[in-house]
């Protein structure tokens, strides 16, 4: 019997006596006897920590993917996370705190989140960022909710360049919220907005990716014009690393910017916990989902931080809240603040630049290969490149793995084998989405290209 419970048997006896109870079972007298679980849980008995650790470590070893040099992206990237970020974000004061309900003893988390909000807002080119949402998809869902709330129109035009998983989430949640989604297709990797609109089709919200999930840099100005034409809000799902090289979505006129913040200090983690980035204009701040930290002063006039505009939140507004989010991803936001502090002005620019260089180097290296061609023609990309491979992409991924590389993400795994509005069925099967981060060396890229070559030949 090894656990984390302090009670000695003497103490239990004392405490029961104090309560006038005979045994621990009496604590549950309010549970109807008929419901009580007979024979205990259908689980193995407890095991000591080292045994458990050994078990999980064995499971971890069974993940062959871990050994592979990563050329996969699609919204989850293998960026450099330095030891200093792990050390600081891992400090137990940040890790084992709750939501800062008592700001007098929570200035650490509050100030870190305030700094996070500032950095993310600057990145997006908008004045307000919230304290985090679950992930990129969740942030998009909330953004659409905000837009619908602001315009009162449930019709939403969603570019097919939005990550298929995110679109899928939007569809799931629209079953509840009643939003009416229209997918706007891509051509040559970029959204082609409809020229004219039927009456019932007037969007309250327009959603575009920047770059989109196939890596292509979209014309956000065009999306803004479309939104303006209909009095809609423009939601931009932006890659926050590409933002190191690109004009900010805010500059292009986005009302809401969302993104996936995993890129800032969080490991690939098999998909979570990640970090939903959410920024908006001041106009929309009272519709903001999730928590927001603001600056104020204490009784002695000292600068201090507190969660604010709480009247939007579910614990106060209940069914009228802007969102139901309560527990969010604060630790990832703190991590992002540390990572962005580490990168700084020059580092973020450098990472973005290096991603773009690696991607260009890959594209050029692929030039000579038979059986691998870019899927989106010459459309400019930053750090993600869609390819069409001569053999099905899933096969390519399996083959290239034997050479030590995670080749990328088969588009069939994202958009389904039939494809969707973003790509047709053939591209779905033969499409491979490849990403090159600043961590990939020239030697790795060369090795990868050779492996790819081999894989598409046979």
């Amino acid at each position, binding site marked *: 019997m090894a656990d984390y419970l302090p009670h000695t048997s003497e103490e239990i006896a004392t405490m029961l006596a104090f309560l006038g109870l005979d045994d621990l079972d009496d*604590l549950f007298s*309010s549970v109807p006897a008929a419901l009580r679980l007979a024979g205990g849980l259908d689980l193995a008995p407890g095991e000591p920590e080292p045994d458990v650790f050994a078990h999980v470590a064995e499971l971890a070893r069974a993940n062959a993917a871990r050994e592979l040099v990563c050329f996969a992206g699609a919204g989850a990237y293998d960026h450099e996370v330095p030891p200093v970020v792990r050390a600081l974000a891992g400090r137990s004061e940040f890790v084992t705190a709750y939501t800062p309900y008592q700001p007098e003893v929570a200035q650490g988390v509050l100030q870190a989140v305030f700094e996070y909000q500032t950095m993310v807002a600057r990145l997006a080119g908008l004045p307000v960022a919230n304290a985090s949402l679950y992930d990129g998809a969740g942030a998009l869902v909330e953004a659409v909710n905000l837009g619908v709330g602001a315009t009162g129109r449930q019709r939403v035009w969603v570019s097919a360049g939005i990550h298929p998983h995110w679109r899928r989430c939007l569809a799931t*949640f629209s079953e509840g919220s009643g939003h009416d989604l229209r997918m706007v297709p891509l051509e040559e990797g970029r959204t082609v907005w409809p020229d004219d609109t039927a009456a019932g089709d007037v969007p309250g919200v327009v959603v575009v990716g920047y770059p989109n999930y196939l890596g292509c840099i979209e014309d956000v100005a065009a999306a803004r014009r479309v939104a303006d034409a209909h009095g809609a809000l423009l939601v931009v799902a932006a890659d926050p690393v590409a933002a190191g090289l690109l004009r900010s979505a805010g500059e292009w006129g986005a009302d809401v910017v969302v993104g996936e913040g995993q890129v800032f200090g969080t490991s690939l983690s098999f998909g979570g916990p990640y970090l939903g980035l959410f920024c908006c204009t001041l106009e929309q701040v009272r519709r903001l989902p999730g928590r927001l930290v603001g*600056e104020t002063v204490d009784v002695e006039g000292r600068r201090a931080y507190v969660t604010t505009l709480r009247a939007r939140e579910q614990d106060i507004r209940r069914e009228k809240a802007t969102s139901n*989010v309560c527990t969010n*991803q*604060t630790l990832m936001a703190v991590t992002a603040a540390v990572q962005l502090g580490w990168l700084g002005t020059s580092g973020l620019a450098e990472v973005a630049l290096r991603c773009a260089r690696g991607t*260009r180097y890959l594209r050029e290296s692929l030039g000579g290969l038979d059986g691998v061609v870019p899927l989106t023609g010459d459309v400019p990309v930053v750090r993600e490149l869609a390819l069409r491979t001569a053999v099905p992409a899933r096969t390519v991924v399996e083959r290239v793995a034997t050479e030590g590389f995670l080749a990328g993400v088969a588009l069939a795994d994202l958009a389904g084998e039939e494809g969707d509005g973003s790509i047709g069925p053939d591209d779905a099967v033969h499409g491979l989405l490849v990403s090159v981060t600043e961590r990939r060396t020239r030697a790795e*890229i060369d090795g990868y290209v050779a492996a790819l070559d081999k894989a598409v030949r046979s």
Partner: protein
Amino acid sequence: MSGAAAGGMARSAPLMGRDTEPTIFELSEPGRRCWQLRTTGVPAWSAEELVPAEHRRTRPVPLAEVSERDLVGHMTRLSHRQFSVDLGAYPLGSCTMKYNPKVCDEVASLPGLADVHPAAPASMTQGWLALLVELEEALCAVTGMAGATFQPAAGAAGELTGLLVMRAYHGANGEERRRVVIPDSAHGTNPASVSLGGYEVTTVPSDDRGCVDMAALRAVLDRDVAGIMLTNPNTLGLFEEGIEEIAGCVHDVGGLLYYDGANLNAILGVVRPGDMGFDIVHLNLHKTFATPHGGGGPGAGPVAVSSQLVDFLPGPRPVRRADGQGYEWLWPARSIGRVHSWHGNALVLARALAYIRVHGADGLLRVAERAVLNANWLRTRLSGTFDVPFDRPCMHEVVLAAATLRRKYGVRALDVAKRLLEEGFHAPTVYFPLVVDEALMIEPTETESLQTLEALAGAFERIAAEASREGGAAAAHAAPRTTPVGRLDEARAARHLVATFDARPSSA
């Protein structure tokens, strides 16, 4: 010296003084840097060569520019300005701030788990799939359910997912029900989720024993009711004794029962939601299964359902392969779709599995017993000191109230909370549940010792005694005085919103 830009000055660390810590932007100095990146050998094309001019940013995103030394100093000092479970007791009701075993941190940082790309094919992530399936089985054993999804990233996401499953289920039966019933003591996420799920909230009051008022419930139940959301024990820390009856009458009108698992800690191994009649359960792994809360998250809110609902769960789900050769992803036949970018908060799930295995069937029962024992000890000890709105044995938490203190001395629940900080404890949850006036919701959790409970009770007693004395109310209003900052002007924060450094009047 507030706002001074001296990276190596530690007056903001409570060890040294009571100054404020400058923001990282004030520590910033143009040209300083700390990043170091791999040498890659990739050709050094310029931004101009890589990005078309119309898209290219003309100046870099302005972030802070600090040295690694200053970054470390800044964040370490901030950490010293933060209370946490690791520093002391955190009896925050409804939040289950138990001790989080450090072994879980090492589990979550195993490279074989942490460095795996979520889109890597199942063939290369068999360990992860096996882990998820094992955890699913454990959660089903704990809840008495048939299958689960791991995608919801927190309790509220689980609620909404569960409600969408409920909606899909009724829809599959050709029914369009419009209302979901919620007790008035429910957590705010419940009604918020109900709205997002496209339902109307029908509130039922609590009776004078703190449980669902059965008559009122019966009165609102009809075939327009899609289901009811309950947590049991409820947010008053009381077990809904009439749960079988509730389940019966909700099921009678064709509704489903949704279990808000935030309070599951109290009943581990004692009673299972499935046996109580629930059809859908979300679990707050970050409460029950010891994931540290991270200052507000991440958590994980898996949803487990009865067999008739498994087909509606989000997809894809990790399952054992039919041929017995490992694991694969599968889309449930009538899935509601995805609710997360990937597979949910995977590393949180790995932590939960480790926690569950260390405890096992025997240990999880001990968790519940000790949690309930601690709460009842505090209840009994403090029942002469504060109001006891519902004077019955509680489960894992107890709701007391400062209504009398307020009436007699003008000392509110908030004052009690702030005074408790001075005593070296985090405050309980205050003003929740809304049905109790001046509520103090105390959840000691099972990992606090009798000695700590005694000290905590002593502190509460001192605070109450002091309130009745000359000047006591004034002292309570002045609290906390031993913390790095005193009470904040919260109204000002909302009135003059400064949500970024750039919005500060001085940075304008």
